[in-house]
């Protein structure tokens, strides 16, 4: 463990692990990282225990990269711990950045979720009513489980975050750029980006990089799910009635979804300066509905089921309608 | 049930003198100033309105015109110069014509010529008649005595006959008036007892004209009262004391005093009225219908010739007195025969009657209302 090496930790909270994989997906770049840094914690790739981190001095870590949202007490504990031990704390991926897919759970009360998962789930053994509890005593043993919070928080609702890397997951290319930038900043080879800035993404919305042609005329009499229509690969998906979040989403992913015929779902978050991605997408969608009659508008909107889960798919926790802090 | 309006009526009333009624826009100033305007009799506005709309039946049964003494206040106050006072006057003329079954009154009001002619004819017949009678049984040079040209006794008989005729005519018209205004009114039924109970109203109004006293200026009332009382005094003297009136040359103060006073009253008032009508000084004298003139002229002639006859007799100028007597009669007869039942004089009967009826009806209406609201009968 040479001192000139950067000390980094990579951890996951309420996440699918895709973010860690996106770092692995940087292929050979991993070796660059290894050259430049000692990885003190990275559950997906290396062995590491809580106590190792607890043993570190405050600020001993140069960078802590945490993906995933805060769903339970363990997530929160680790977030605090890594923040305390690191100089730079990075929220990596949509869940850490905006709550991500897990925060969709915030549209439902905790009790509902428990019920669905442990009591009314089709795959349960009949009669099994076991529900996870923080504390359980069994044959004289005290078992402990992290507490399942009433709702999901994005990282900065729990700890102070220095940088955000959006994406579900961040594209390996972007991950590489972001990490390089950080390393260069920390090793004094480059100017550090301002605190709180989004790295590994661009300043404009996705349409800027989307190859599809965009016409002035955008009028939609009904919306289609991607499979409901034979789409024109050259034309803007919205113009074809396929709900695409691209216009309200920060670019940086490389337009992978729209290029492959799948509408953007907004994982890179809102464009710079936008308060709520969903609200903006809402305006955009409303602008192309082709009717002036309230009833017809409702008709058209029937073809747009569960709009909220689309508009705020990755950002429920970030909505102004959500509790904004947890301490 | 809707009442039929007759826009033409207003044109007919013009001939009776109502020239300006269409100018009225019902501000109500007239009724506000009129001392007699009091529920249930709103005058003159209501009559004005009925006339504008030509509600003939309503007008015919209308007592309100008779409740007005024509003080002229309303006409002075009217912002539109609609002459409500004159309209009421005209309505009285029209009603007089309506009450008169002979249609003569109507004829007189519609044509001054007709009236003039009638007066002249009656005067001539009267003159001729008395001359023939005089020459047939007496001497033109004898005023009194057995050979008198026109002895009081016989004139007296003539008077009474004439009076009878007059009463018959006027009576019928008064009866018609009652029928139009009270008798056929289905809304209000006046019990006989009430007629009796209130009969005192007739002489009271007739002799005092107390209501007129309510008008703002009192002078017209005084004049009107003096004229009326003088006339009545004279009438009484002629009807009951003709003999003593005729007697002479010695003056019998017990009757002649009254005679002279009455004559004086008649002369003074008629002259005053004539002057007023000529000068058009006050509202009520501004519009004069031909019949008004005719009435005053006849009256003044009668009074003058009467006085003259009295004087000539006293001076012993019998022939002159007799001639003058005939002239006197030539004025008296048409006046009584035409004016009393068919023209202006008739109001001497109609007005007190109207006030009497009005009172009766009002009383009935009030008690009706009381019943309506369930309040106790008059306490």
């Amino acid at each position, binding site marked *: 463990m040479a001192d000139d090496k950067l000390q980094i930790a990579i951890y996951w909270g309420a996440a699918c692990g895709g973010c860690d994989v996106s770092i692995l997906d940087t292929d050979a770049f991993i070796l660059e990282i290894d050259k430049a840094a000692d990885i003190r914690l990275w559950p997906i790739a290396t062995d590491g225990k809580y106590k190792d981190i607890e043993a570190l001095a405050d600020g001993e870590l140069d960078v802590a990269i945490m993906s995933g949202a805060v769903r339970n007490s363990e997530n929160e504990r680790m977030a605090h711990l890594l923040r305390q031990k690191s100089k730079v704390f990075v929220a990596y991926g949509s869940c850490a950045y905006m709550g991500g897919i897990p925060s969709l759970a915030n549209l439902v009360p905790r009790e509902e979720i428990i019920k669905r998962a442990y009591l009314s789930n089709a795959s349960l053994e009949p009669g099994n009513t076991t529900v996870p509890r923080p504390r359980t005593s069994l044959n004289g043993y005290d078992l402990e489980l992290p507490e399942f919070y009433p709702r999901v928080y994005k990282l900065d609702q729990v700890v102070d975050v220095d940088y955000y890397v959006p994406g579900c997951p961040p594209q390996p290319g972007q991950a590489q750029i972001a990490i390089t930038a950080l390393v260069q900043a920390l090793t004094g080879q480059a100017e550090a980006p301002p605190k709180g800035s989004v790295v590994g993404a661009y300043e404009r919305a996705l349409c800027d990089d989307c190859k599809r042609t965009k016409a002035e005329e955008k009028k939609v009499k009904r919306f289609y799910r991607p499979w409901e229509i034979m789409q024109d690969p050259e034309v803007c998906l919205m113009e074809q009635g396929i709900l695409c979040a691209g216009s309200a989403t920060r670019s940086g992913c490389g337009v992978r979804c729209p290029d492959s015929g799948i509408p953007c779902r907004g994982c890179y978050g809102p464009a710079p300066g936008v308060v709520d991605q969903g*609200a903006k997408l809402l305006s955009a969608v409303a*602008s192309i509905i082709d009717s002036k009659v309230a009833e017809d508008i409702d008709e058209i909107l029937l073809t747009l089921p569960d709009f909220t889960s689309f508009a705020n798919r990755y950002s429920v926790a970030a909505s102004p309608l959500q*509790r904004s802090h947890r301490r | 049930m809707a009442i039929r309006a007759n826009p033409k009526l207003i044109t007919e009333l013009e001939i009776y003198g109502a020239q300006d009624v269409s100018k009225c826009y019902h501000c109500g100033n007239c009724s506000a100033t009129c001392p007699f305007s009091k529920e249930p009799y709103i005058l003159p506005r209501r009559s004005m309105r009925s006339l504008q709309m030509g509600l003939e039946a309503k007008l015919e049964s209308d007592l309100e015109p008779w409740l007005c003494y024509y003080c002229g206040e309303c006409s002075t106050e009217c912002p539109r110069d609609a002459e409500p006072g004159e309209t009421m006057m005209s309505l009285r003329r029209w009603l007089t014509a309506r009450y008169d079954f002979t249609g003569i009154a109507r004829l007189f009001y519609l044509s001054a010529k007709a009236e003039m002619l009638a007066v002249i004819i009656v005067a001539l017949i009267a003159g001729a008649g008395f001359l023939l009678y005089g020459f047939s049984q007496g001497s033109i040079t004898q005023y009194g005595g057995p050979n008198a040209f026109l002895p009081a006794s016989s004139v007296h008989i003539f008077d009474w006959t004439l009076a009878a005729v007059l009463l018959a005519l006027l009576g019928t018209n008064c009866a018609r008036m009652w029928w139009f205004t009270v008798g056929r009114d289905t809304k209000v039924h006046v019990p006989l007892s009430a007629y009796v109970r209130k009969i005192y109203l007739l002489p009271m109004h007739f002799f005092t004209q107390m209501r007129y006293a309510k008008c703002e200026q009192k002078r017209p009332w005084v004049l009107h009262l003096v004229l009326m009382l003088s006339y009545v005094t004279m009438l009484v003297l002629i009807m009951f004391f003709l003999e003593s009136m005729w007697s002479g040359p010695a003056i019998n103060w017990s009757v002649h005093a009254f005679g002279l006073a009455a004559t004086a009253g008649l002369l003074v008032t008629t002259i005053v009225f004539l002057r007023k009508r000529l000068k058009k000084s006050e509202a009520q004298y501004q519009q004069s219908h031909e019949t008004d003139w005719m009435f005053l002229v006849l009256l003044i002639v009668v009074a003058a010739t009467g006085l003259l006859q009295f004087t000539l007799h006293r001076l012993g100028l019998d022939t002159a007195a007799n001639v003058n007597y005939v002239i006197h009669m030539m004025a008296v007869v048409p006046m009584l025969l035409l004016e009393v039942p068919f023209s202006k004089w008739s109001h001497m009967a109609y007005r007190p009657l109207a006030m009497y009826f009005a009172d009766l009806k009002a009383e009935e209406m009030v008690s009706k209302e009381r019943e309506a609201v369930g309040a106790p009968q008059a306490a």
Partner: protein
Amino acid sequence: MTFEPKIVGFLCNWCSYTGADLAGTSRIHYAPNVRIIRVMCSARIDPTFVLKALHDGADGVLICGCHPGDCHYSEGNYKMMRRYPLLKSLLADYGIEDERVRLEWVSASEGQRFADIVNDMTERVRALGPSPVKAALEADLAER
């Protein structure tokens, strides 16, 4: 003491704001709970404004524009009309009761109508009580 809801009103300048002024010049009295913010056209009302208002503690949000067909900018109110149902479904998913956010058309001549709407909405929101968002925010503060 009764709960006095705070309602933010977004009114278009040409019809609704003028209508509200007319209520004033006609001295038509109404509940003081609505705080009016003037925008040139209901089309300017970004759904974010509504979220922002609720986040900042509004118990209700009233949106007023010209009657359909009478927009000063000829079509602006239709744009709001199209946003509204989407906005409502979004709010419903976040647990905001239906009556807290309301879109009404008020013309420049409808002072009385504006007053009636304000009174009606104030009563309905009062009946609902404080907004859940506000409650959540207060919970945040409590935890700090």
